[in-house]
């Protein structure tokens, strides 16, 4: 692992700059206290800066900066607990880049990149109950689709003839599609239940999707978001420890608290190295990229949850209040832990990949 390239460092700074005004504490607080499903001005700003197309090829209207750039974005969004429903759009674009035909690429990717069509992507699972009939009629519902409250386009899993999973690309603004927003414990993001009644799906809108690869890709973004959020809440905590006094001394001078902070620091430093390395594996299309991604999701989300859980404790009473931002981080990280698979399942995926990598090398 080398230090971040200059390009990425510049991108990080630019994103952080924007977020420091558009998604500062006041803005996040305002969003949370509003009934809005998304912060439209932040979305517009992100669109203008090309955030949604960072990883979309230039030929498809994106910036083609690769996965590393996307990870910088997600890390910064996490660090700011920014209320930006970007995950769905990025995942939908990834699915179309890999599985869309020329017309779909041309029709959707530039608009996704430009933030003109907020989108979502979902995987099969307990909450997915969509059926695609022999005659390509889609019916049923799928719940807890992250970012769906504000989406216009969706790539959703359905059970096809014979039970095989298929992925359908559909417009959510049609008459026979209903989107029912679902608030999450994480106040900075929303989900929705999407109900489809007898919607005809054009055969070309059935996309070939590598579900495992998509789960991994989502996991990578979520681990960057979790790392950023953990870093954010840890910085808050260290600052607080320097100023808050008890027994006539800053609480940061108490050795037991110091030692816990040191443990959090080294865990975060290790997590950051793991993530940066995994980004490199992606960029070089290394065969170990997939299992390192699963490792990131499992390990980084776990580390982040440990840090955030203790951050509230280290803040004491004030960290237990709604007004303080600690809980925004904790809840966001907790959701990241559970999205697109749990820590346990991602560790299992990582182990299988590690075993495979051992036998490949043997």
């Amino acid at each position, binding site marked *: 692992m080398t230090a971040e390239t200059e390009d990425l460092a510049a991108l990080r700074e630019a994103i952080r700059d924007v977020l420091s005004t558009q998604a500062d504490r006041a803005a996040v607080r305002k969003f949370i206290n509003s009934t809005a499903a998304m912060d439209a001005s932040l979305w517009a700003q992100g669109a203008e800066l090309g955030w949604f197309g960072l990883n979309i090829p230039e030929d498809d209207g994106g910036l083609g900066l690769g996965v590393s750039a996307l990870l910088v974005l997600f890390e910064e969004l996490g660090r700011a607990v920014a209320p930006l429903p970007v995950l769905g759009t990025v995942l939908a674009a990834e699915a179309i880049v890999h599985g869309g035909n020329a017309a779909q690429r041309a029709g959707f990717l530039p608009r996704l990149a430009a933030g003109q069509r907020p989108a979502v992507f979902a995987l099969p699972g*307990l*909450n997915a109950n969509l059926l695609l009939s022999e005659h390509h009629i889609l019916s049923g519902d799928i719940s*807890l689709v992250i970012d769906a409250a504000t989406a216009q386009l969706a790539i959703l899993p359905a059970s096809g003839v014979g039970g095989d999973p298929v992925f359908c690309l559909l417009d959510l603004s049609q008459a026979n599609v209903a989107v029912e927003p*679902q*608030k*999450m*414990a*994480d*106040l900075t993001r929303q*989900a929705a239940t999407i109900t489809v009644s007898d919607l005809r799906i054009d055969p070309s809108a059935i996309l070939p999707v590598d579900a495992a690869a998509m789960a991994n890709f989502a996991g990578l973004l979520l681990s960057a978001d979790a790392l950023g959020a953990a870093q954010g809440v840890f910085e808050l905590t260290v600052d607080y420890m320097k100023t808050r*006094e*008890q*027994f*006539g001394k800053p609480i940061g001078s*108490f050795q*037991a*608290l110091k030692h816990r902070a040191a443990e959090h620091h080294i865990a975060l430093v290790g997590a950051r190295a793991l993530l940066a390395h995994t980004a490199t594996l992606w960029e070089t299309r290394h065969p170990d990229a997939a299992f390192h991604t699963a490792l990131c999701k499992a390990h980084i989300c776990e580390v982040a949850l440990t840090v955030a*859980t203790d951050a*509230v*404790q280290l803040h*004491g*009473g004030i*960290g*237990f*209040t*709604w*007004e303080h931002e*600690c*809980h925004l981080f*904790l*809840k966001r990280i*907790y*959701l990241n*832990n*559970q*999205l697109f698979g*749990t*820590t*346990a399942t991602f560790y299992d995926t990582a182990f299988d990949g590690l075993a495979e990598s051992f036998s490949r090398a043997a």
Partner: protein
Amino acid sequence: MMDQTVNPTPFYPLGHVGDIIAFRAAVAGWLNATVPPDWRQNLTGASEETYLKFQNWWFDQLKSVGLATPHWPKSWGGAGLPLSHQVVMIEELARIGGPMAEMFVVSLFHMPATLFANGSPAQCDRYLTGVRDRGEIWCQGFSEPGAGSDLSALRTRAERKGDVYVVNGQKVWSSFGMHADFCLLLARTNPQAPKKNAGISYFILDMRAAGVTVRPIRQITGRAEFTEIFLDNVEIPVENLIGAENAGWQIAQSTLAAERGLLIFEHAERMTHALRRDYQALTEQHGKPLEDAGLRREFTKRYAELTAVRLLIKQMIEQGEHGQDSGLLAAVIKLYWAQLLQNYTSLMARMRGLDAQRAMPLSLGTGHNSGDYLSDFLQSYGWTIAGGTNEIMRTLIAERILGLPR
């Protein structure tokens, strides 16, 4: 159900004191007949007003069979129940999953513990009667923004002026302050005292006095159970001083020691039943009993710890029954329980997966087994931070039990 008139039941537990089997049956029978089976649903997404009404209703139900103040001595109108019977009462309440009289905790434990030991006869008479007969609600005014773990740093000032003390300052973390009639208040009467612990006095504050402003503090679950109390030239009559002037620190120790045993016992008994319900729900969700070895072992480990803490609580209760001081065991139990509760609720939130991440309407007054697993986890900080943080408890155990140097 909340405005239904009290229905006299054939169960009168107090008629069976001395026969513990019959007492248990009577308590169980009475609870079955009295606790509305849908009380949890009714309090989910309910307004604070509904909650307040329900708590009052529940207190009245308990009162109607003499069980609102089971642990108070008969001389003060309590049931004077032996500890063994209080234990049975709590066990049965936990078994049926009945409501907790959580709004009355200070009224039932802290205030009387303080007044029994330090109150004047007039104070005892007025305020114990108020709880017993009228269900008056008390809150506690100890912590301040600058005095959390370090109570001795408190800055709220009480100056004697003739027949009153004039009080100025700010209190924080007072549970149910918005509903309280009275407050157990610590304030500094002698700022020149050489040790910071000295110079503090203990008052009864009428929450309706002029200059008292209460602001709810919303906690991370979304619930506003705590309050801040602002005191702006509030006049407290001198007869509301408890004990001697500047003796507040000592008196506060009896307040803090008041609640531990039975309250944690009730929580632990409730967790025992919750764990079983959780096991069944998870088994249904996943089709078989927790087939993931990692999570299953974590679950089993929590069960071991729950078993252990229940045994320790019973040990403490028995010590209390024999008049032994169990303050140090209480500290062990507080820390053990706080960590167990946090680990258990976090495990449940993780085992429940994405479903546990939905925003759910608040389930008021259902403690840490609301069924909203993430909320229960967040709620657990109430134990790890309040009433002596885990950190304070660890230091106390290391120094007072293990004898490690300061």
